Structure formats: structure tokens, C-alpha cells
């Protein structure tokens, strides 16, 4: 079955970021397809490669990147939410005159249309948030 996942909360802030990851991983391991994971609101903070959690803690950002590499996942970050919170890729840095980018591997920045499309294309949309 084709699933789409929406994540509304940031890492280390609310369990939603962990729950979404565990659900996504379990679905993939059962052979389901994840059409897209869409990061919205504070959920965009899952996509910064500048996080350095303690070594004995889970690395939520790397965990997403690794899952994306393993299963060729489409991890999409909402552009408007990202701009507000300083989640930047090369294109956004150029467009907004920033001197750095911080988007983690496997993530891409795009618009809300990607969430709408995921809702249409996937058979189930599962939302994780506060």
C-alpha cells in the first residue's frame, strides 16, 4: 500500500518526530511504499544537518537521512515553514541572501502543493503532531 506521512513537530521536542520515523520504518519493512514524508510547521527542524545530539542519544536527523538513502525516500520540507525557522538549501540561500545552507542529506525544500499531491496520490495519509 502507498502511504504518505506528515510530521508537524521538531526533533527532541515532541514524540511525534520519533513516532513518525518508527511508523515509516515499520511500513517500509513490511514492504509498503512511502510516497512522501512531508515536514510541516516545527517538523522542518527534522531537516537540519547542524544538530549534534549526545553520542548515547538517537540522532533523529541522521536517522531520517539514512532511511531515505536506504529506501530512496522523498523527504520534503515546507518552504514557508523552513524560511521562518532557518532551514536552508543552496537555492534558498541564494534567493534570500544567506551565506550558509544546512539541509540534511535526503531532504529537499518545496511547497505545500507537495503535501496536497501526497494526500491525493497515497492511499493513506498518516499525520504525526502535537
Amino acid at each position: 500500500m502507498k502511504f504518505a506521512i506528515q510530521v508537524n513537530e521538531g526533533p527532541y521536542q515532541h514524540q511525534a518526530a520519533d513516532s513518525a520515523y518508527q511508523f515509516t520504518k515499520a511500513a517500509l519493512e513490511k514492504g509498503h511504499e512511502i510516497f512522501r514524508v512531508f515536514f510541516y510547521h516545527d517538523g522542518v527542524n527534522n531537516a537540519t544537518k547542524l544538530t549534534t545530539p549526545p553520542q548515547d542519544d538517537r540522532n533523529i536527523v541522521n536517522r531520517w537521512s539514512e532511511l531515505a538513502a536506504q529506501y530512496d525516500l522523498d523527504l520534503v520540507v515546507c518552504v514557508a515553514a523552513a524560511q521562518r525557522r532557518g532551514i536552508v538549501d543552496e537555492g534558498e540561500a541564494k534567493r534570500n541572501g544567506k551565506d550558509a545552507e544546512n539541509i540534511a542529506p535526503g531532504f529537499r525544500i518545496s511547497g505545500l502543493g507537495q503535501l496536497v499531491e501526497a494526500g491525493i496520490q497515497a492511499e493513506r495519509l498518516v499525520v504525526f503532531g502535537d
Partner: protein
Amino acid sequence: MSILHTVNKSPYEKNSLDSCLSLASEGSALLLIEDGIYAALKGAAKEPQMKEAAQKMKLYVLGPDLKARGMAEDRVIEGIEVVDYAGFVDLAATHDKVNAWL
């Protein structure tokens, strides 16, 4: 149309469980996740309401979230089934929609 409802708030903190139970139709399912698991505990104030809800819908609780909060499975009200993440995925797949009561 069967819907899987998810509730992730403790019923002793927020009223999302009450909202869900009052609006969920007969034959739908409820999965308690994150702090929502506190609604599944035996001997707590919500037990009568959960037992009543079990008459009209299937009730589930996420095992890993019970464990994360130090709650053993034998503390779960009879009639509420404990599932893992794979079980969560199965429930999402076997129902027509998934509705998160955030």
C-alpha cells in the same frame, strides 16, 4: 467507511480522547499512542468510559509507548489490544482512513 482514529494525548491533560469517542462512529477503531496510552490503564478514572467505548469500536494501544512510560502490558484494560509499530501499520492499511486527533 472504517476509520482508524489515533489519540496521542493523556485524557487527564487534554480532551482529545473525549472528542474522538463522542464523534467516532460504530465499527471504527481507536489506537492510543504516545501519552494517549494513559487512557488504556486499568483502575484509572477513564476505565468505565473505555469499557463502554469498547462496545462500539475496536480499541488498541501501542506497546512501545506503554513500555516507554514504564507501564506493563498487564496493566491494560481487558478488551484493549496491544500492538507494535508493525501492528499500527496494519491497522492503518486495513482501515479506509487514518484520523489523528492532535
